[in-house]
């Protein structure tokens, strides 16, 4: 049984990449599993909650689109995906990969084949932006004026 926190972290990766990244890693799988939908991809809404002052009482900020999908891999596990936006293929691929990653026999190799490269892609994008943001940090210098008596 794969640890929940590990599953949460791969689910996060699968949600945050783009669908084209998922299509690309999907092509690397030599054997594509047979599967069927327990719940075909479906787009809906979730309401985003926030806290006043960032840490205080709750309020509703607004809704966002979200697409969900649940698949059952034949002789395998059930995979679930909820991803922001309306891309049904993204939800389907994320659910499939979630199912495959839960299989203890495949888990380690799939983490290397699928998740690590995706994590690297996300990190590269982050680093690129981080430098641009960092460049806009203000360096103050203050000047002492007048006599020092």
């Amino acid at each position, binding site marked *: 049984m794969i640890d929940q926190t590990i599953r949460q972290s791969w689910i996060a990766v699968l949600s945050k990449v783009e669908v084209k990244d998922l299509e690309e890693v999907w092509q690397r799988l030599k054997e594509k599993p047979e599967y069927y939908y327990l719940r075909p991809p479906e787009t809906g809404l979730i309401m985003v909650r926030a806290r006043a002052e960032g840490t205080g009482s709750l309020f509703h900020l607004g809704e966002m689109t979200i697409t969900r999908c649940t698949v059952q891999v034949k002789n395998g596990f059930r995979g679930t995906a909820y991803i922001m936006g309306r891309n049904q293929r993204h939800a389907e691929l994320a659910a499939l990969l979630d199912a495959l990653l839960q299989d203890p026999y495949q888990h380690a190799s799939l983490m290397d084949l699928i998740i690590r490269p995706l994590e690297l892609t996300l990190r590269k994008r982050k680093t690129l932006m981080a430098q641009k*943001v960092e460049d806009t940090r203000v360096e103050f210098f203050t000047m002492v004026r007048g006599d020092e008596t």
Partner: protein
Amino acid sequence: MYVSAKGGEKAISKAHEFLAEVRRGDLSIPELTVEQIRQQLSLAVDRVMAEGSLYDPELAALAIKQSSGDLIEAIFLLRAYRTTLTRFGVTLPIDTTRMTLLRRISSAYKDIPGGQILGPTYDYTHRLLDFSLLIPSEKGEDQKVLKCEFSTQGEPFARVLEFLHQEGLVESGHSGESETVQDLTLQPLQIPATRDLRLQNLARGDEGFLLSLAYSTQRGFGYNHPFIGEIRVGEVSVEFVPPELGFPIEIGKITVTECEMINQFKGSSTHPPCFTRGYGLTFGHCERKAIAISLLDRALRTREFGEAQEGPAQDEEFVLMHSDNIQASGFVEHLKLPHYVDFQAELTLLRNLRKEYRDPKGEGEQP
């Protein structure tokens, strides 16, 4: 007796064709793509998402294209589309303390933990029209930079207001564990409103209206000595607990703008004076609006502080009932609908009144 007028179907059909042509414009110019709008008019997209109260940049960009850039029309499209979708649930509250920052400034303090980070801002541009933008630039290096993937190094930056709070100088944000929170999309607004409803209402309110009201407070209609404690713009993770999984998962990241305002101090017989607060939060990069919301949030707390209501910005009913530009344009623009019968009634009434005015005793004078 009731006479109904019909017709105009053909005219309407032709009007839509004409609209499509006008929207498209000169055919020798390349057609605008939704992705171009999303990338290059991102602040318009942010406004439409904030006021449409629906975070979906592609849909917002599509709505802007369809409405030829009339943003309130685009917001209307988004609001209408939203009604066709099922709600799956609510998220865990977003954590702006852990925001991946794009921009973070404070006006109250020069030196803040993490520093002042300007980000991509128009603030220092002198507002000179840049004519070089008339000519599209040569394709630059292939950056492959997505707009919303970024991070700063290290730990999340501590909040500026937190330092004031630790010294006891600012009122605490009321924290609540399992408090009830209301939802404007599920029940109509009632006055007096609670703060959660006010913040939701203002988040989806018209930027121009809120800006003007906030301005009015600064001109004295309910002034409360504001200082910007902190503005943060960046991405936050969105987490949701699917019922079938039973544990929280991250579904993506959204950009939000947050403004924390430090306002005039208040004391009472039981509490020493301390600064009061205002808070504004919006989808997307909407600084002007977040600042306006934080000023209005404070202004609308007059009841809490026992302050006299000096201006419309402090009048909860005035602010909250007129902030929604879809509701407003609905009523204002409905005047375009045929009012033929109503007007005939008015005309008849007026003629009778005039007749009575000239001939009060009914002696048969000619009008």
